[in-house]
């Protein structure tokens, strides 16, 4: 068997729309120098590490020699040392030493399998194909009036169902009763528009009542504008209007709370959600307050989303029963279908 065939067997996903896209597989902060971090992206095992140059590298977690896991090895003098026969690879992925023949120049084919990798918005993005587009834009990242707080990771089964849930305001009163909605008085969802643009799917504002809609813990009317930027990356910006006159001083008209959500599909039934929240409140809430609240909300979400069957999301709308209030979800599924995505879908 040639190397190629082995790799082919190890490969889970063959959809070009997913392979040729960027996927978040870690937070930047997880990659301290000297650490080998194993991650799995769509069933493909990768190892991440940061070389002395400060750059992050993403390789197949596999030594070309006899297929041992590089992540079980170590980093020594800016090279990755395979745990099995000690072959050493430099930050270009070239083998620089075969300890069994220390004076020989390793063969040219002695290279790791490297992948494009970028750090952006505090996340590590990898592609196991040839990325066709740049990483999607998170507009508030550069805006210093917004405080940024990374939260998660949160584990979900279906990555698509997690993304769809993120963009679904009609579950708030039930899944997040008392926090993002009112159980006994759910908001009717007024018609909203969804447009397919260059950026992805973009909605008009959706209005909901939130008894405790942001870290300030006061009742607000929230207007969500969603964007589904990639099959597994979504975003919302919500505009907040404080409900009680006596709370007005706790905020102002320009108050916004945004979330940039990324999903790493480990396999078809396991996903890791990582988010970055951005807010421009005055005063800004503490990082702990933001995280505490996000942890509650995403745990509530996973509790329900993980019960949805089949785990693989049906993209044929005939398979489940939709309502106009689910318009964004419908368009999302349709979009996945048009992109020819089969991995993790039904």
């Amino acid at each position: 068997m040639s190397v190629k065939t082995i790799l082919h067997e190890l490969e889970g996903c063959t959809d070009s729309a997913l392979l040729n896209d960027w996927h978040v597989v870690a937070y930047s902060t997880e990659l301290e120098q000297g650490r080998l971090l194993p991650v799995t992206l769509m069933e493909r095992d990768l190892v991440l590490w940061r070389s002395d140059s400060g750059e992050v590298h993403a390789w197949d977690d596999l030594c070309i020699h006899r297929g041992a896991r590089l992540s079980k090895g170590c980093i020594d003098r800016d090279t990755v040392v395979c745990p099995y026969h000690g072959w050493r690879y430099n930050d270009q992925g070239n083998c620089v030493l075969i300890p069994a023949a220390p004076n020989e120049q390793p063969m040219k084919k002695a290279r790791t399998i490297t992948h494009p990798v970028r750090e952006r918005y505090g996340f590590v993005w990898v592609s196991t194909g040839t990325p066709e587009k740049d990483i999607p834009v998170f507009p508030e990242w550069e805006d210093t009036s917004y405080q940024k707080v990374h939260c998660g990771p949160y584990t979900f089964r279906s990555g698509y169902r997690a993304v769809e849930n993120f963009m679904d305001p009609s579950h708030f009163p039930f899944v997040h009763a008392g926090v993002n909605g009112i159980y006994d008085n759910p908001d009717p969802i007024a018609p909203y528009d969804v447009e397919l643009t260059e950026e992805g799917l973009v909605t008009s504002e959706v209005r909901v009542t939130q008894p405790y809609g942001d870290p300030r813990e006061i009742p607000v009317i929230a207007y969500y504008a969603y964007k589904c930027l990639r099959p597994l990356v979504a975003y919302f910006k919500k505009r907040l209007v404080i409900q009680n006159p006596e709370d007005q001083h706790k905020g102002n008209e320009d108050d916004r709370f945004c979330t940039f959500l990324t999903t790493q599909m480990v396999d078809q039934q396991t996903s890791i959600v990582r988010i970055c929240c951005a807010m421009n409140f005055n005063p800004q809430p503490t990082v702990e307050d933001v995280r505490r609240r996000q942890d509650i909300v995403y745990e509530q979400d996973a509790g329900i989303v993980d019960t949805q069957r089949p785990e693989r999301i049906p993209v044929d709308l005939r398979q489940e029963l939709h309502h106009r209030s689910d318009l964004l979800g419908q368009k999302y599924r349709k979009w996945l279908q048009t992109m020819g995505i089969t991995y993790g879908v039904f």
Partner: protein
Amino acid sequence: MSSEGSAVSSRLAVVTARQDAGLNICLLTLQAEDGAPLPPATPGAHIDVHLPDGRSRQYSLLSSAPYRIAIKALRDGRGASQWLYDNLAVDDLVRISAPRNNFSLREGATDTVLLAGGIGVTALLCMYDTLSAIGRTVSLHYWARSQEETFLHAELSGKEGIHIHSCGGRATSMAAVMAGHGPAADLYCCGPERMLTEFAILTRDRDPQRVHIERFEADSTGAFPQTDHGFTVKLARTGTTIAVSKNQSILEALIQAGINLEYSCEEGLCGACEARVIEGDPLHRDSVRTPLEHNKRRTIMLCVSRVRSSDTLVLDL
């Protein structure tokens, strides 16, 4: 879309007074040409006003003896209101229809709430006057864009039970107003489509007998015409022609013909079966979008929409 004026019941009327009643709004008084009384009308009624070029447009009667109507120059593309606003002067003759009422008032109601948006207030003012005159509890909430665009601002703002929500800032929401009125209240709404949609959502759980909507926009005259008939659908991309029988939806006929389509609810509620219309005059019956929006986007929902005439509908499929 323009109502076919029935020549029989139409008559000429004279404009006997014209008054400015707000920004781009005029108030007209109409009387029969021969001075005889015009046919009586109940609160909520409207008349069609015919333009010389054959178009017509509906206006609510603010009072019926004499007839008074308000015209707002809407700059709405059709331009009928604009034309009337620009051209009608005292002593001019206009052709009008007999009054009709799809929006009649329950005078026996114990609590009546009238919700008006913009010029839609004209459909409700006559109701307000009638109920106040007989001593019933009535409130009129009127949302206007600004004070100068408010119809008869000076006159209305002093009246008991009339609340004008106009001057910028955070206006009271319709939901907040409705929260103050229990299930026994009769609610009437007339205003732009957006407002009617919100009203429909907010009143979903109320007794339908107590919820009344008046669409005053050009093409909605109330209930769906119940004229089901068979027709033909042509698929532009393949050139296929498919017959839709009287008892079948377009969606059913297309599926039967082996066409692969998206759909989910089959009741006009989800929006999954939306298709683009290239030619034909569709009759919309879904609650995903308003007919106006559909016509603007040239879309239909295949599961419930039909065709107005027995014409062919050409779809972008």
